[in-house]
């Protein structure tokens, strides 16, 4: 049922071979043969004990961190992958077993990449039936008026991750708003958080380094996000089919190698991230509201938007737009590169506009942007 289990079958094959010589038993129940070796504790345990231990651990994380209150409506970000499938199962099971009193929903995003989400959406639909959780699929087409395939057709294979990433970040929040939920739960696991800690060190972002290990984020925003799998090593990850970012790729490879060498290192990175002595006075990026869609975005993004729109001559006043709105505006005006990277100055912007202006797709419909 889980990535952890699937991932460890390889590791358990060698002990299973030697069982003929010495009959090994589950470390916990001491009755059944072990089915897997947990990367976290290196214990060899049977399938049933693994379910119990795993569910109990997640329950403890939820209780200790007070992630939910009774009566809350919770959206589970469901991609159809291992992490979110396990999350949907565990949350529905724990909700029933421990009477959390939560209203759970599945929320899926369809980026509109041919063949990419077909299987995973099927999985999510199966989860809907299996766990009895209502499902809402929100597509990029509905939200933005563009599918990723259409975007790639327009801008090519380079830089399309920027669009997908920015749109996806907002899509979950927009979907959650549509469902009128109180919290959004994602299947981000220990590997993801460890990777973020490393990336923030590599790029010198001390402010984000300080808050990236928090189990609940965005508490000051409309819909807080929680990560109940913060301390769970789930192993296998799935990347997008279009070009990945090189230096994020290096960090992922490093984490994979690290996990092979010392599984506990993942949790140690998180521990380091939680204990970093970051001064209280460290300035966190200020949040602002996009004047177009009302989405919360960092001031830096909003400022750059204002700058770009100022240069484009089409606005009489300076608008503070979020990154998604800028990208979308660029797409709709036939200037897809408008929001990518830094602005190179007035002349270059004008030049781009003049050369591409004739191809502008003014007629393209913009999706529902109210947040």
């Amino acid at each position, binding site marked *: 049922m889980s990535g952890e289990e699937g991932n460890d079958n390889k590791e358990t094959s060698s002990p299973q071979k030697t069982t003929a010589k010495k009959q090994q038993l589950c470390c916990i129940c001491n009755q059944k043969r072990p089915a897997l070796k947990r990367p976290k504790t290196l214990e060899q345990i049977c399938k049933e004990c693994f379910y119990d231990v795993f569910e109990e651990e997640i329950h403890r994380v939820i209780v200790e961190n007070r992630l939910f209150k009774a009566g809350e409506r919770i959206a589970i970000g469901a991609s159809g992958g291992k992490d979110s499938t396990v999350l949907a199962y565990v949350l529905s099971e724990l909700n029933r077993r421990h009477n959390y009193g939560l209203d759970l929903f599945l929320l899926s995003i369809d980026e509109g990449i041919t063949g990419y989400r077909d299987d995973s959406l099927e999985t999510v639909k199966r989860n809907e039936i299996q766990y009895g959780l209502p499902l809402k699929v929100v597509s990029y087409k509905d939200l933005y008026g563009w599918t990723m395939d259409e975007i790639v057709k327009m801008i090519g294979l380079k830089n399309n991750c920027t669009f997908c990433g920015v749109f996806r970040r907002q899509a979950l929040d927009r979907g959650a708003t549509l469902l009128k939920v109180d919290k959004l739960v994602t299947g981000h696991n220990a590997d993801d958080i460890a990777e973020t*800690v*490393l990336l*923030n*060190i*590599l*790029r*010198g*972002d*001390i402010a984000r*380094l300080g808050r990236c290990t928090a189990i609940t984020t965005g508490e000051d925003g409309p819909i807080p996000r929680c990560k109940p799998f913060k301390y769970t090593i789930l192993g296998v990850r799935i990347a997008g089919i279009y070009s990945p970012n*090189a*230096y994020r790729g*290096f960090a992922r490879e*490093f984490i994979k*190698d*690290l996990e092979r*060498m*010392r599984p*506990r*290192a993942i*949790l*140690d*990175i998180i*521990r*380091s*991230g*939680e*204990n*970093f*002595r*970051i*001064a209280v006075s*460290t300035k966190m990026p200020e949040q602002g509201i996009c004047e177009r869609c009302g989405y919360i975005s960092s001031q830096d993004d909003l400022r750059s938007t204002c700058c770009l729109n100022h240069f484009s001559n089409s606005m009489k006043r300076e608008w503070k737009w979020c990154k998604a709105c800028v990208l979308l505006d660029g797409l709709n005006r036939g200037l897809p590169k408008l929001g990518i990277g830094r602005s190179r100055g007035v002349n270059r912007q004008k030049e781009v506009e003049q050369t591409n202006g004739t191809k502008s797709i003014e007629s393209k419909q913009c999706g529902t942007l109210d947040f």
Partner: protein
Amino acid sequence: MACASGGCGGAGGGCYKDEEEKQVLVSENQNQHHCICLKCKVEESISSSSGDFTSDLCFVCFRSNLFCKFKQSITTNDLISPTDKVLVAFSGGHSSRIALQFVHELQEKAQKNSEASRDKAYPVFGVGVAFIDETNINSLELDKAIQDLRLIVSSLSPPEKELHIMPIGNICSSDPVEGRNMMSELLCNVTDATGKEDLLRYLRMLCLQKIAYDNRYTKLVLGSCTSSIACHIISATVKGQGYSLPADMQYIDARWEIPVVLPLRDCVAQELKMLCCLDSLKTLEVLDGPRAGINGLVSSFIQVLLEENPGRERTIVRTAEKLSPFHFNRLPEESKDSNNSHLPSRWRRRKKQNLKSHDESMPSEFLCPVCFSPLTKSDFESLTMKLGSSDTCSESEIFGSSCCPSCQFQILPKEHSSMEQFYSLLPQPMVARAPRDSMNGDQTWLREQIKDCLLSDGEDGT
């Protein structure tokens, strides 16, 4: 290479016949980089023969740029004062070789200034060199290395420098053979490759401290550069030592009896290596080995990152620089001489500033007896609870509990009997750092450590 010097442009047909494609690319590269120095605008800028390093500066400007970085870190952070006696830790690598060279040049200049002054009253700091012999290579190679080492140190005079060579086993026992045996047995008890390497590093520091203390040195200079610090930052993060990280990467680290200073913190290893080559500074390469376990993995990860962005090491160090340092990451009061009337006014002024900052109350940190890194508040609380609740703890158990989680995992043996043996082999200075008895015995250590908490609890209670 011949094409480049002959000025055929590296594109002539003959070149491709005689040279391999790689070499042609190098010569092309060199031609591109053979331009005027950005700083002096007179000399040609430098590039290494292998083509893996280029600079926009000529040799003289490149050298003075590195020396300026070194000198600036010393003057702005008051790392070395005229009354100090400085011990330079020399491992045989490029960084420590440059540290030694630059410290020598600084001392030479100070000596000249002192001689030139009217009353010749300015003191000049003394310099010694320490080399820790931790090799398992055959004695012939080691003899040669030590011969080279003596040659290097003797070439750096006047002023004369004392050379201290200490086998790492001497920290366990004063008898060389017994010490060596104890050391190898101690390391055999550590199963984790990364843990073994780290323990060796901590023992090395103990040796350096011992040399410095026995010979009345007041500062210990390490050749840690941006690159090695960047590696340490990632390794420490991966090992769960995020809390103690800022302690190891500041210019000064005064948690040791003899304060440790890192004047080469702003120079990257590649530049230092280049300077060694250009300046024909001899190094002892034979003693350099590949790094093991996680440390090795981190080194190769950083190498990959550097290929993508050569400035990545600096960014990593800059990130960790923003973490709050500990109170011991500044000069302790005692390290400055109380009788300072003979010092230049700038030194006196700085001393005043230092004294001012030391008036503030300083929080005490409990340090892990193995790695000497500060424990987090929660780790310390669990230690005090453990010591308070257990009645019959053996010394080795108390030692094990007072270590940081990282050392507990990767260095300390898991089994009780191995731990007992490991503890019995540990050098005395390391054992002495840990509390000796649990709550049923002498409680002074614990009381000292939790003094602040006890006071606040009492106030709250009344």
